[in-house]
C-alpha cells in the first residue's frame, strides 16, 4: 500500500537550485568583484535547511500511517521508456529512506554552517558552496530514488561532487590526482552497478524497473542470476563505500577541505553502498551466499583498515581509515542480513564520525593547516570545546557504553554471532579493540601531553562559534543517538529496527540473553584494553617512533597503492603508449600501408615505360594503332 506525496521531488530540488544559483553567481562575479561570503553562506544554508524540514515532514507523514502502508511515492515524469524498460523519474520515501533523509539533511545543514567558518577567506568561497549544495542534492536523489536508475543518478552525482571537492585545491597536482583516483575507482564500481542493473532488468525488470515492482517480482529470480546481480551490485557498493579491493581512494580523498571529508567521506556518501545493499535487501536476503561474500569482504576491510589506522600520523588519514573500517562493519552487518543493525550503524557513525572530522578540522584550522599528530600535543586547555566534543566522538567510535557507537556496533557483532558467523564476530571484536587503540592514540597525542611544536601551539586558539556550535550539536547526537535503538536487554525496544522493518527483509533470531551479555562484555573488555594500551603509550609525551618491521609495512599500507599503481595504472598507461607509439603507426594501419605499397611498386614498374623521348611515345602509338587495326581487320573478316 503506497501513498503519493508530490513534495518528495522538492527535497533534492532545493539544494540543487541553491547549487545553480550560487554557481552562476560565483561564475559570473568571481573574476571581477566577488560577492560577500555572508551572502554565499546564507544562500548555501537555505537549501539544506529547507530539505531538513521537508525530511521531518516526510518522517511525521510516514509515522502517521500504519506500519505496512509507510510508503510515499512520487513519479515526477517518465524519464525514459524503451521497449519493456520503463524508468520513471520517481521518488520513494519509506522508513529506510526517511531515516537516511533525516540524518543526511541534518548533518548536511550543520556542516554547511560549520564550513562558513572553516572556509572563510577562501578565494573560491562561492564555488565551494555550489559544490556542497550540488552534493547534497545528488545525495538526496540517491536516497530518495524510486528505482535503481534514479538512484544511479545520485550515485554518480555524489561521485562527481566528491571528485570536484577532493581536487578543490586544484593548483596542487597531488590533490587533483587524488580526485582523479576517487572518480576512476568509483567508476570501476559503477561498472558493476550498471551491469548489475542490466542483468536485473533482463531478469525481472519488464514489469517495472522501480523498487516496488522489483520487490514484487524478486521471487522469480533464479539462484544463478540472483547471486550475479547481488555480486555485481556489491562491486558498485565496494567502489562507493571504499571496500576491498576498491578502498584505496578514500584515504587520498582527505586532500579535500575538512568539512568535505566530514560530510562526503565520512557521514553520507560513503555509506551509500550500505544503503544500496539494504535497499536491495529483498534480493540479498534470498541469496545468503552472496550475503556471505558481502559480510566477509566487509569484516576483512574493517580489519585491514584498522591495521593501517594504527600507524598513520596524519590526523585525517587516521579518521579516513577508521571510516573505511567502520564501513566494513556495516557491510558485515548487511551481509549477515542484519540490515537494520547496519543502517543503524550508518546513522550513529554519521554523527560521531562527522563530529570527529569537524573536530579535526578545528584543530587543523587552529594550527594553520598542520595535520601531523606528531607535531601536536597538549591542546586540551587551549581548545576545551573541541577537546570535549572530540572526546565524546572518540568514545562513541571506540564503542564505549553508553555512547551511540556502542549500541550500533554491538548490535552488529551480536547479529553476526546470533546468525552463527562466529568468525566474523571474532574479527569484529578484535577490530573493536584496535579501533579503541588508534582513536585514543590520536586523542592522547593531540590533546594530552606536552606541545611538540611550541610555536604552533602558542598561536592555537578555539575557532569561532559558527564552527563550535555544530560540534556541540553533533556531540549531543553522538552521545545519545544510541538510545533510539536500545536493545531489550537495557529495557529498550529496538525502535529503529522496528521503524525499518517494513523496508528491509530480515529475521531476528532468538538467542539467550546470557549469550548477548557475554558478547557485550567481551567487546567492552577488548575496547578497555585498547584504550588502556593507548593511554600507557601516548598519554604522556611520546615521541615519534621510527617504524620497523610490521609497523613499517602497516604504515606504508602494505604497499597496496604501489602495487595497484604498478599493476593497473602503469599497465594502462603502457597500453596507451604501446598503441599510440607502436601499434597505431606500424601495425593497425598495415592493411592500408600494404595497399599503398602495392600501388607504389606497380607504379615503379610501369615507370620504366615512361622514358621521356617523344619518339618512343610515337612508337607506342604506332604499336597501339597497329594492334587496333589488326584486331579490327580480324573481327571484320
Amino acid at each position, binding site marked *: 500500500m503506497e501513498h503519493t506525496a508530490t513534495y518528495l521531488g522538492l527535497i533534492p530540488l532545493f539544494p540543487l537550485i541553491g547549487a545553480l544559483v550560487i554557481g552562476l553567481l*560565483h561564475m559570473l562575479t*568571481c*573574476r571581477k568583484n566577488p560577492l560577500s561570503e555572508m551572502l554565499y553562506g546564507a544562500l548555501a544554508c537555505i537549501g539544506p535547511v529547507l530539505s531538513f524540514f521537508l525530511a521531518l515532514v516526510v518522517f511525521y507523514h510516514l509515522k502517521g500511517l500504519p506500519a505496512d502502508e509507510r510508503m510515499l511515492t512520487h513519479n515526477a515524469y*517518465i*524519464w*525514459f*521508456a*524503451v*521497449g*519493456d*524498460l520503463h524508468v520513471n523519474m520517481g521518488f520513494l520515501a519509506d522508513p529506510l529512506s526517511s531515516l537516511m533523509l533525516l540524518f543526511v539533511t541534518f548533518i548536511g545543514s550543520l556542516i554547511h554552517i560549520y564550513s562558513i567558518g572553516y572556509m572563510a577567506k577562501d578565494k573560491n568561497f562561492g564555488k565551494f558552496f555550489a559544490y556542497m549544495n550540488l552534493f547534497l542534492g545528488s545525495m538526496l536523489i540517491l536516497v530518495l530514488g524510486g528505482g535503481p536508475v534514479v538512484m*544511479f*543518478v545520485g*550515485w*554518480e*552525482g555524489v561521485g*562527481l561532487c566528491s*571528485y570536484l571537492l577532493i581536487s578543490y585545491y*586544484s*593548483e596542487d*597536482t597531488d590533490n*587533483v*590526482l587524488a*580526485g*582523479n583516483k576517487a*572518480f*576512476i575507482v568509483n*567508476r*570501476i564500481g*559503477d*561498472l558493476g552497478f*550498471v*551491469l548489475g*542493473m*542490466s*542483468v536485473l*532488468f*533482463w*531478469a*525481472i525488470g*519488464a514489469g517495472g524497473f522501480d523498487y516496488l515492482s522489483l520487490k514484487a*517480482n524478486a521471487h*522469480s*529470480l*533464479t539462484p544463478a*542470476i540472483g547471486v550475479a546481480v547481488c555480486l555485481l551490485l556489491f562491486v558498485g557498493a565496494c567502489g562507493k563505500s571504499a571496500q576491498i579491493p576498491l578502498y584505496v581512494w578514500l584515504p587520498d580523498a582527505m586532500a579535500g577541505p575538512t568539512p568535505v571529508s566530514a560530510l562526503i567521506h565520512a557521514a553520507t556518501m560513503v555509506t551509500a553502498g550500505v544503503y544500496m545493499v539494504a535497499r536491495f535487501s529483498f534480493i540479498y536476503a534470498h541469496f545468503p551466499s552472496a550475503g556471505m561474500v558481502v559480510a566477509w569482504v566487509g569484516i576483512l576491510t574493517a580489519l585491514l583498515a584498522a591495521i593501517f589506522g594504527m600507524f598513520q600520523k596524519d590526523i585525517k588519514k587516521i579518521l579516513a581509515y577508521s571510516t573505511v573500517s567502520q564501513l566494513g562493519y556495516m557491510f558485515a552487518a548487511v551481509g549477515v542480513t542484519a540490515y537494520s543493525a547496519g543502517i543503524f550503524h550508518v546513522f550513529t557513525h554519521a554523527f560521531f564520525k562527522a563530529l570527529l572530522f569537524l573536530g579535526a578540522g578545528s584543530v587543523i584550522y587552529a594550527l594553520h593547516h598542520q595535520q601531523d599528530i606528531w607535531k601536536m600535543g597538549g591542546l586540551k586547555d587551549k581548545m576545551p570545546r573541541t577537546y570535549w566534543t572530540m572526546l565524546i566522538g572518540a568514545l562513541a567510535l571506540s564503542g564505549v557504553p553508553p555512547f551511540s557507537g556502542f549500541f550500533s556496533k554491538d548490535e552488529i557483532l551480536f547479529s553476526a554471532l546470533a546468525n552463527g558467523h562466529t568468525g566474523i564476530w571474532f574479527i569484529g571484536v578484535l577490530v573493536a579493540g584496535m579501533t579503541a587503540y588508534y582513536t585514543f592514540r590520536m586523542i592522547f597525542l593531540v590533546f594530552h601531553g606536552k606541545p611538540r611544536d611550541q610555536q604552533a601551539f602558542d598561536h592555537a586558539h578555539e575557532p569561532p562559534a559558527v564552527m563550535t556550535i555544530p560540534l556541540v550539536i553533533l556531540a549531543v547526537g553522538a552521545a545519545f543517538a544510541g538510545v533510539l535503538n536500545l536493545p531489550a536487554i537495557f529495557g529498550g525496544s529496538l525502535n529503529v529496527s522496528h521503524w525499518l522493518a517494513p523496508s528491509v527483509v530480515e529475521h531476528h533470531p532468538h538467542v539467550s540473553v546470557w549469550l548477548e551479555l557475554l558478547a557485550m562484555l567481551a567487546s567492552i573488555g577488548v575496547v578497555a584494553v585498547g584504550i588502556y594500551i593507548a593511554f600507557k603509550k601516548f598519554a604522556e609525551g611520546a615521541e615519534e617512533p621510527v617504524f620497523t618491521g610490521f609497523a613499517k609495512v602497516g604504515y606504508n599500507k602494505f604497499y597496496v597503492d604501489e602495487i595497484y599503481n604498478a599493476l593497473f595504472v602503469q599497465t*594502462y*598507461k603502457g*597500453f*596507451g*603508449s604501446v*598503441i*599510440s*607509439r607502436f601499434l*597505431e603507426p606500424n601495425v*593497425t*594501419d598495415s*592493411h*592500408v600501408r600494404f*595497399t599503398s605499397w602495392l600501388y607504389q611498386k606497380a607504379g615503379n614498374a610501369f615507370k620504366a615505360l615512361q622514358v621521356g623521348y617523344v619518339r618512343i611515345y610515337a612508337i607506342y602509338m604506332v604499336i597501339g594503332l597497329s594492334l587496333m587495326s589488326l584486331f579490327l581487320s580480324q573481327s571484320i573478316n
Partner: protein
Amino acid sequence: MFEYALSVMIFLPILAGLAMLLFPISRGASRIAGMIVSLVVLLMGIELFLGFSGTGGMQYLENRPWIESLGIRYGLGVDGISLLVLMTSAVLFPMVFSIFTTRKKGYYANLLIAQGSMIGAICATDLVLFYIFWEIMLLPIFFMIGIYGGPKRLPATLKITIYTIAGSLLMLAALVYVGVSYHNQFGAWTFDIVQLGALNLGGGFAVLAFFMFMAAFAIKIPLFPFHTWLPDAYTEAPTATTFVLSAIMAKIGVYGVIRFVVPVFEIEFARFAILFSLAGVVGMMYCGLAAIAQKDMKRMLAFSSASHMGIIAVGVFCMNVQALTGSLFQIAAHATSTGVLFLFVGLMEERMGSRDIGDLGGIAYRAPIFATFFAIAMLASVGLPGTSGFIGEFLIILGAVKFNGFIGFLAGTSLIIGVCYMLWMFQRVFFEKTNERTLQFADLKVSEVLTFLPVIVLIMAMGIFPQAFITKIEPAAQLQVAQIFPTTQSDVAETTVLTPGHTNTKN
C-alpha cells in the same frame, strides 16, 4: 507549405555555398550569409522536429521519378531513425559560423555545401540518391582539409579521401548487385529502400555484397581497424571540419548501416552481428587506450571520438530495441558533446596558439565560464547521469548485456576508459598552475556564451528529459528490430505480457 521542406534543407545550403564561391563577396559577408542560411535550416529543422509524430513510419515524404529507366527516384523522407541525425546536422552548424569569424570565403562556402549534402544523405530513401549525396559529402571535406588544414594536411587529405572513396566504390558495386538482384526477382527496377526490403538474398554473393556495404560504412564510422585515417584527418583538419567530421559525418556511417544494410541484408546482419559488435568494442577500448597517450588535445579528442563511435556501433549490432534506441540517442548526444569539445579546443588554439596538453594549465582560474562549459560537455562525453551521454550509454550497455554478456561487460568498460583520459586531460589543462601562455586566456565573450549556451542547455535537457526525444525514435527502432526478427520478437513480447514471472528463463 512544408511539403518541400527536406528539399529546401538540402539545396538551400548547397546552392548558397556554390553562389558564394561564384560571386565576389567579402569574408564578413560570406560569414553572415552562411549564418543566415544555417539559421534558416535550423529553424526548419526545429519545425520539422516538433511536427514529427513518432509513429515509426516515414514522414515529410517527397518522391518523384528521376531516372525512370532504372527505377531511380528522387525520394526523401524522415523517420525516427534519421530524425536525430538530421537534427544534429541542422542544429549544430550555426555555432560554427558564429564562433570562427575570420576564415576565408571558401571555408564558409564549403561548410554550407557539406551541410546540404549531409542532410541529403540522411533524408534519401533511394539507394542511388543516397550514394550520390554520400559522395558529394566528401568533396567539401576534401577541400577544407586540403586548403585550410594544418601543416601536415596533404597526406591527411589524401588518406581520408582515398580511404573513403575506396569504401564507397565497394558500396557502389554492391548497390548495383542489389538493384540487379531485385530486377531478377521481381522483374522491375527499383532502388527504393522500402521496396528493396522485400529482396530475398542468399548465398555467397549476398555475403560479399554485405561486406562491401559494411566496408563503406565501417570506414566512415570508423570501425576498428578501419579507423586509421581518423586521427590524422581530425588533427590536421581545421576545427570546423573536425567538428563536421566527428559530429555528423561519422554518424551518417552508423545511420547508413541501420537504414540501408539492415533492411536488405537481415540474414547476413544477424549472422555477423557478433563480429561487428566485437569490432566496435575492441575499437572502443583500443582508441580509448590510445587517447591517454596523446599530447595534442585535438588528437586525444579524435581518439575519444573514435572510441565513442565504437560503442555506438555496438548498440546497432545488438539487435534489440534498447540498444538500437540507445545508439540513435547517443548519436545526437555524442554529436553535441564531442562536437562542442572540438570547438572549445579550436577556441583555445586560436587564443593561445597551442593545443598541446603539456603547454597548458590552470585555465579554470582564468576562465570560469569556459571551464564550466567544457566540464559539462566533458561529463556528457563520459556519460554522467543528468547529461545526454548517460541515457544512450546506459541503454547500449543494457542492450549489449542482453545480446551477449561478454560484449556487455566489455562495452561497460567504456565507463572507466572514457573517464581516465578525460580527467587526465582536464587536470593538465584546467587545473594545476597557470603559465605565461594560459595567463593571457580570456574567458568567453558574451556572443560566444550565447552561442554555446543553447547546446550546453541541450546537453542537460537531453539528460533530464530524454523521453521527448525517445518517443519519436523508439517506434522506428521497434520496427527495425522487428524486421530482423519477424517472428521471434512478437513471441517474446507476448510471453512477457502474459507471464512476467517466467521471463527470467530467457537469460
